[in-house]
Structures are given as C-alpha cells and as structure tokens.
C-alpha cells in the first residue's frame, strides 16, 4: 500500500515541480518525499523509478500525439536511434533511473537518521 502511495506521490511531485524547475530540483523533492515515507531502499527505488518514468513516458507520448509533430522522428534520425517511439522509451528510461536513484537516496538518508531500536533481543 505504501509502495503505491509513494509512487503516486512521486508522480505528483514530477507533475507539479518539473514544469517549473529543472530535473535536479525534482530529484531533491523526490528524495524528500521518499525519506518522509521511509520505505526500504529497494522498494523506494522502484516506486521513485516507476513514478518518474511513467510521468516522462506519459508526457513525451502525450506531446507527440497532441502536437502531431514529426519532430520526435526527426530527432531520432538525428541521434541515430530509430523512431520517435524509441525516444519516448529512452526518455522513460532516463526518468526511471533519475526517479529511482532519488527515491533510494531519500530512503537511505532516513535510515541514517532513524536511530535503530536498541536492545531488542534483551527484552
């Protein structure tokens, strides 16, 4: 449940912050949200990655369809990576990695500052 919650929060963060700020500001916010939720590292990574990856794929896909532009195709030819849809995928993968690493860092940060419960075996 918390996993879905974090994914959803990351989607919100990217959707709201990214239009106004560059990607590295978005990274900081994802880390903060992830630290706040406090899921284990790997789960946080997945939630952050999925959240940001989905938004970036969604946005780039939406822009291609809405605009009807052949620019993605032209850019793909320029870069030499096949079609415009390949670029949507590459954009998604980049968002996936950025979001994932940010959320992982946030989770790891929280771990460091959360005191581990002492003497749990001594009763």
């Amino acid at each position, binding site marked *: 449940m918390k996993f879905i919650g974090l994914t959803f929060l990351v989607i919100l963060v990217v959707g709201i912050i990214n239009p106004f700020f*560059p990607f590295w500001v978005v990274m900081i916010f994802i880390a903060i949200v992830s630290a706040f939720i406090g899921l284990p590292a790997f789960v946080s990574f997945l939630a952050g990655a999925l959240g940001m990856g989905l938004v970036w794929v969604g946005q780039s896909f939406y822009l291609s369809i809405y*605009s009807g*532009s052949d*620019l*993605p195709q032209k850019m793909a030819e320029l870069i030499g990576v096949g079609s415009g849809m390949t670029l949507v995928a590459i*954009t998604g993968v980049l968002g996936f*990695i*950025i979001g994932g690493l940010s959320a992982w860092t946030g989770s*790891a940060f929280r771990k460091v500052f959360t005191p581990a419960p002492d003497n749990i075996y001594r009763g």
Partner: protein
Amino acid sequence: MKYLSLIVSLILSVGLAFLISRPIDSVPPLAGLLDPNHGFWQNTLSEDQIAEKEIDLDNLSAPVKVIYDEDLIPHVFAENELDLYRAQGYITAQHRLWQMEFQTHAAAGRISEIVGPAAIELDRMNRRKGLAFGAEKGLAGMSSEPEIEAILEAFSDGVNQYIDGLTDATLPVEYKILNYRPEHWTPYKSALLLKYMADMLMGDSDLQFSNLRKILGEEMVNKLFPYFPKDNDPVIEAERIWDFDPIQVQSPDTTVYPNDLLVMDPLPQPEPGIGSNNWAVSGSKTKSGRPILANDPHLSLNLPSIWYSMQLTTPNHSVKGATLPGAIGVISGFNENIAWGVTNATKDARDWYKITFKDESRTQYKYGDEWRDTEFRIEEIKVKGEDAFIDTVVYTHYGPVVYDKSFRSDRQDVNFSLKWTAHEESQEVKTFILMNKAKNHDDYNDALDNYIAPPQNFVFAAKDGDIAMRIQGKFPVKWEGQGRFFMDGADPLMDWQAYIPFDQNASTLNPERGFVSSANQHPVDPSYPYFVWDRSYEHYRNRRLNNELRRMDDITVDDMKALQFDDYYLHAAEALPVILDLLDEEKFNSDVAKKYLQELKSWDFYADPNQKAPTLFYIWWDKIDDQIWKEWYEWEALVTTPNNYQMVELLKNEPQGEIFDHKNTSETETAATHVNAGFAELVETMSEWESEEGDYSWANYKRTSVRHLVPQFESFSVTNIYTGGGRGILNATSERHGASWRMVVELGETPNAYGIYPGGQSGNPGSRFYSNMISRWSKGEYIDFSLRSLDDTQGALFTTTFN
C-alpha cells in the same frame, strides 16, 4: 551498512545528475534535451498550440494587434512606426530567433563559438573579407540619422524582450542540440545581416581571369569572354537614350597588370546560374488595364526559410511581402499604392589589388610616390572548447588584405587587398523603411537614393499606372577593362577614382514596350557611357522572359504566375540542334544510345519534372564541357571557362577552331571530337545511373532539396522535391537553389497579391508551419497575399494583442 547505502545512492544520484547535465563531446546534456518539460519535446508544439491572446511588451505607446492567417503570416497593426518595428522584432524572434542569430554569427565570423575548431577556417575567411568591418561602417551610417537609429533600437528591443522571456521549454531546438544560449540582439546585428546578404550575392573572378590572362594572353581572353554577347537583351531597354555627361576617369597609359600565376583557393563564389527575375507590365498590356508586378529572387534553398512574410500596418501605411529575419520592414512587397521587387545586379563591385609592403612589418605600403600606413585589425575568434584563435588582418585604404602569408596562399609571397562597396558606410535600412511607405515613383526614387550594396535591380509599379526599373547601388566609374584582373595597388590609376552619380545609374520609366524586366543579365546596351562588366551575366532567362513579355497581351495575374513557373530550357533549345548536328550517329548503335537520341530529338525543350530529355541534355552538355576544357581543369592554377552561351557560339561558328584542340595530344581535336566523346560518356553514365536508380525523369535526377542551415541536421531538411526548372530557366529551381520567394501583385484600388516561398513561417522543425508551403511551391501554387484590415479576422488562425 546504512551509511554504505546512503553513500552509494548519493554518489550514484549526484553522479547521474552531473553526467546528464553536461555535454559529452558533441552530445548535448541529455537531461536538457530529453526532459519532456524543458527538452526538445516542448518544441513539438506548433505556434497555434501555444498561442497567447495577450503578451506584455514594454515601451509600447499603444497596444499592437496581430492577426495570424492560416499559414501563420502575422498581420501587425500598430499606431506608429516605433511600435510597429518593436513588434516586428518580437514576432520575428518568436518564429526565427535561432536563424537570425546564426546568420549574423556567420557574417561576424563567430561560428567557431558554437561548433568548435571545425569552423575556424570559415570564420577567418568571413572576417578577412571584412564583413564585420563593413557592418561597423554600415551601422555608423544608419546611426547618423536619429530616426533610423530609433527604429533600429526599437526592433532590437522587441527581439530582446522575447529573448528575456525565453524559458528552457520555449528555447528553439537548435540551441538545445548545439547547447548554447541566444545573446541580445543589437542594431549592429541588423547591419551584419545585410552584409550576409551582400556576401551571398556578390562575387568576382579576378583570380581566375588573372590566371587565364597569364596563360592564354589578353587577346584570347577577350575573344572567349566578350564584354557583350551577340544577343544582348539588357535590363534597361536597348533603345534608352542616355542624355547626361558622364564622369571621365583617367586610364593608365600602359596597363601593366601584376603577372603572377596565382595558385591559391579563391573565396567561395555565388552559385553560377542563380539569380532572380523581376518584371512589371503596364496597364496597356494587361487585361484589367492595371499594372502587374512579379518578383522571384533565386537563392540557396534553406530551412528555416530565408524569407519571413508579414503585413506591417500603421494608420499611414500598410505593407505586405517578404521580410528578411533581422532586417527592418519588408524587402520585396507592396502597399496600397505601389509594389516593388529586387534582383541581383552584379557589376563587378569587388576588385583585388596587389599590395607592395615596404618591409616585413607590413606597416607601410606603396601608393604612387608615397608610402602609406596600414592599419592592423586583430580578430579574436572564440572557439568552443579551445583557446581563442587570433588572426591579424592588415587593412590598406583599399580594404582588408585577405590573402597573405597566413591565409590561402601558403606557398606564395603575395598580398592582395580587397576593395568592395560592401565595406562602405550605407543606409540600406532607410531605403526599405521609405520604400515600405512609398506612394509613387518619386518616393521610390527617394528611397533608392540611400541604397549602396548589394546592388539590385529594383522593379516598380504603381497604382497610378507607372512602371519603372532602376539599377541601384554604388558603382565605381571604371576605365575599359578595369577590375577584370588583379591590379597593382601601387598604381593610383588602377584605383577607383570616382563613383557613378546615382542619377546616372541606369534606369527607365514607362518604356515604350510596355514592360520592364530584369534577370541578372547585362544591365545596359553598349551605348551606356560607363564601362560595365561582370563575368556572371545571365544569357538565357532574360531573353526567354523578354520574348514572352513582348509576345503577350491581355495579361492576367495567372499568366504572370505561369511565367514565373515557366520551364522552357532556352539553352537546350539553342544548343541541342548544334550538338546533334556535330554528332556522328552511325557510331552509336546500341539500343540504349538510340533510345536516348530518340528522346532528345522528340523533346519540346521544357524541363518539366516528368521529362526525361532534360536529364540527358544536362549530362551530355556537362560531359562536352569536361571534354573541351579538360586541359584547363587540369592546370594547377584555377581558371574560369567560357559560359554556356559562348560555348554554343564556338561550337556553332568555328567547330574546327583552335580552341578545341588539346595541345598535349598528337591528334587534332575539333568540336565534333568532344561532342561525340561526350555522348559516349552520356550513354555510359546514364545507363549505369538507370540500372542503379531507375527512372531518370528530370525531377528524379535533379533532386531538388531545401536544407537546414546546419548541414549535419539532415532530418531537418526536405529532400527529393518533385519539381521542374533549372539553371538558366525562368523557374530557376536547381538542386539546391531556386525561387526563394515568388510574388505577383496587380495594383489597383485594392492590390490583388499572391506569394509563396519554399518553406514555412516557423523556424521550428517541430512545427507544422516549418515546411508546409514547400509542396504548394513545388507545384507552382500561390497563397493569397491580399492586405488584411484590422477588423477582418475571417479564417484567422489566432490573434494576439501586445500591451
């Protein structure tokens, strides 16, 4: 453990952020490019999808309303000229910012700043030609009049307000790919743009002719390159009487030219066969009884397009037509009262002088009996990713010493200074500001009195019925032969001694024949009292155009459109019978040779896209040219060969002539030898081409393409356009050059106007308005260019108000 997780994740995150926000070699920062909110994805939006109803524009005295038609042509309504040009700056930048800046960077020799060391040679050349030097002088001229200066400042302010409002998202995609940001626009950049155009349009062959003179002797040069052709059909009608006293200049008693054989790369030249057409027919020849004017400048076919269309309206005037992004006002267009257009008027406005320096320091040079001081201009060329390149250019009173020990002539101890009218103080901006609001022939002349370079044939027609042509530019008075060869800069008689007064520049008003026209041919008949010469005069388009105009009556706008798109290949019509006559058909028995011959013989001489014969003729002629001038092409020193017209004359009139014999072979070659060898080569080349590429109809062979300004951005270009025409044809569309703008205007109570250009209003390769006019252009179609009034929003794409 928990620390390890933090350290690893932090290093990876920071490392990634660092990696994707920095360029790696020529790859731009990935985040900036791919981020859907800021990267290239944002450039997929067309202008109507991001249209704003209101835009804040500071320093306006009243709101400015803009109506965009369905092709994104802005119709700008302002209360006064300063508001108008401020809005022109903003709007042009909205659609063409990257192009405006790139072209002026090119003229200023600053491309290395963007692309790195690969462009140093190009930048050095542009600086050594003195384009920036000329722009500084040009700006001085413009700024000497406060009204013009205020307009230039207003335009710059408009551009800069747009630049200041740019976000990562709205930045043109080229900046994102090449990873740099726009800088502020200045009036100096508007001056640079005019030098960019001057450079594109003006060339010289002094180097090639000097070499030819050295090798062949002056007599032979004169025979092969006569001052006037047999069929001269000049810009100003031959019957024109010249009733003024010309200024006399003193020619040297004995003309001794520097006698070096010059083995060096010349500066790049304008493409041969490119040029432009313009004409106006008087009401006596039109169906409606009103004058009709037509203009189609032929330039390199580029994207973003060279031209940008606009209507500019104040309560006092309303003008529409083609603007040059970065220049003020409309360059080729019409208003309620008049229409005008431009074609290039080459007249050898660039000369080269051999400089004799006193010593190695190059601080003084010989001029007559004295030693004159030079000036040194230090050119600092900033280079992306490297230290700046410092180039020192020596200036004499002639101009920059372009070729010297450090540039283009490494093996030779030569110094040549370039004299060029584009280096002089000028007022071209004022010309167009005045022309935009001209009401009659007098206003047109007043406007042109400010125009210096690049020289143009300005065609004119007015609502009151006048038609006119004036060849305007600053032209030196030359003694016969002056400027054909490199000259001795130490001899003052070789220098330009005077300029032709503007009222003695060739011009005509309402000539008897009922039309005026120009197609880059000889400007005048030999009776004009000044020496006129250029290597590149057109010999075909002009005759076709004038023959048609003489023949036609009851002319309509549609007739004029058809004439702009006319594919008649006059050169082929004159040359083919001659070479078919010289061909020994018996020798070519193969089926394919017979097929080619049959196609050539049954040809109607139209270079339409679906015709096969133009391809065959074009290749055959090219092969004949190779055969005849084989020895010339092999010389170490660069020369130029006689033009197509003179070649036809030689083939026709002296097929046994000495000129056809190659000196280094034992046989005696004649015209027939080359024509037959050329045909053999045609058969070979063409059958090979046919087996590899298939259909050789003209459009398939010619492959007209419109290319992005950055050659590497191949996918931003439009290639293989199906269209006819070619060099020397009225529809002058060749592989990379052609009608960059076509306009036909019928004057009257309200002007009836049509226009088109091979591109689109938007400079954004992602916009649906980037290249949307190309297919209509390629079919000879036009869009309605009538003036729009403020309350006419019918069919408007959107409207914007600047407050």
